[in-house]
């Protein structure tokens, strides 16, 4: 017998994401889901963001990695609560993994939760985790063809952070092309040019983030 059903395949994930979001909202916590390819500078950006904002906002971090605790240790060394999720092979975080990690996050004592997704330019864009906003990083050394090769993440993100801007004189990437193609895919995308190494552009990003949380 054939039966017609109308459902989202990721309905279960979206339902848990909505539960997470409700819990975050009730606790007064603003949540960002930070995504990028491996090595684009997610943890470095979080470190810079913490150094800029720790006097103004109470921050905690959930670190998603396939294996290891290096990233959580980097964050904890700054005196910020960090929870490490090891996905054990999964290429992205999903709502259920975040749901299980929430118990270890001091929600009552924080204003901003940064979720660092697994390094991957494809899959994380597909899964809601309960965030208020998705943010992506593209390091300019990855090449100016990336927006059109991996359109989904650029379309899903509210802000694009172009990292390693200090390397621009040494590489062939066309910054205007990256920005134009990203904006064509997502006209409301907010773009920041930063260098986590030199600190250039970081305050513009953190001021904007702070304005959203407050």
């Amino acid at each position, binding site marked *: 017998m054939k039966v017609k059903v109308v459902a989202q395949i990721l309905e279960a994930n979206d339902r848990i994401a909505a539960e997470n979001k409700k819990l975050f909202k009730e606790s007064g916590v603003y949540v960002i889901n930070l995504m990028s390819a491996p090595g684009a500078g997610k943890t470095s950006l979080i470190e810079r963001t913490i150094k800029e904002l720790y006097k103004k906002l109470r921050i905690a971090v959930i670190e998603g990695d396939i294996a290891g605790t290096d990233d959580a240790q980097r964050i904890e060394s700054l005196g910020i609560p960090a929870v490490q999720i090891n996905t054990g092979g999964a290429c992205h975080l999903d709502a259920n993994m975040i749901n299980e990690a929430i118990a270890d996050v001091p929600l009552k004592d924080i204003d901003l939760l940064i979720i660092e997704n697994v390094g991957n330019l*494809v*899959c994380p864009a597909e899964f809601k985790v309960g965030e208020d906003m998705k943010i992506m990083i593209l390091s300019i050394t990855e090449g100016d063809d990336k927006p059109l090769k991996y359109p989904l993440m650029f379309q899903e993100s509210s802000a694009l952070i172009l990292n390693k801007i200090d390397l621009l004189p040494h590489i062939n990437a066309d910054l205007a092309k990256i920005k134009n193609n990203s904006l064509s895919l997502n006209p409301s995308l907010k773009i920041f040019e930063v260098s986590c190494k030199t600190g250039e552009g970081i305050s513009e990003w953190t001021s904007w983030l702070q304005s959203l949380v407050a």
Partner: protein
Amino acid sequence: MHEVSIALGLLEFAAEYCKREGYKGIEAITVKIGKASGVMPEALHFAFEAVKVGTIAEKACLNIDEVPVSGFCSNCNKSFTVKQTYVLSCPICGKSSFRIETGQELNICEMEVF
């Protein structure tokens, strides 16, 4: 790689549905997958075959309807369909006054149950 998670989500929905409605098994599941959804049909077929073993859908086959990316342009007042996974400008008039209407689907639309 995330097609395994998609396949698991699909099976979870199907199993819950059959339990609720009192069906014993599933012969086929039909899904609509948008071309811009980020899911590769071949990879989803492969993942489904692997994760269905031992479930209520063990003997089920997966039918995938691929949905192309389409949109409507308010400047030329026409609908369009493209082969790519993204649209930067209306393929008819070249303006950016368009909205995307299909291509992001990840939906279950039909099941054959017994």
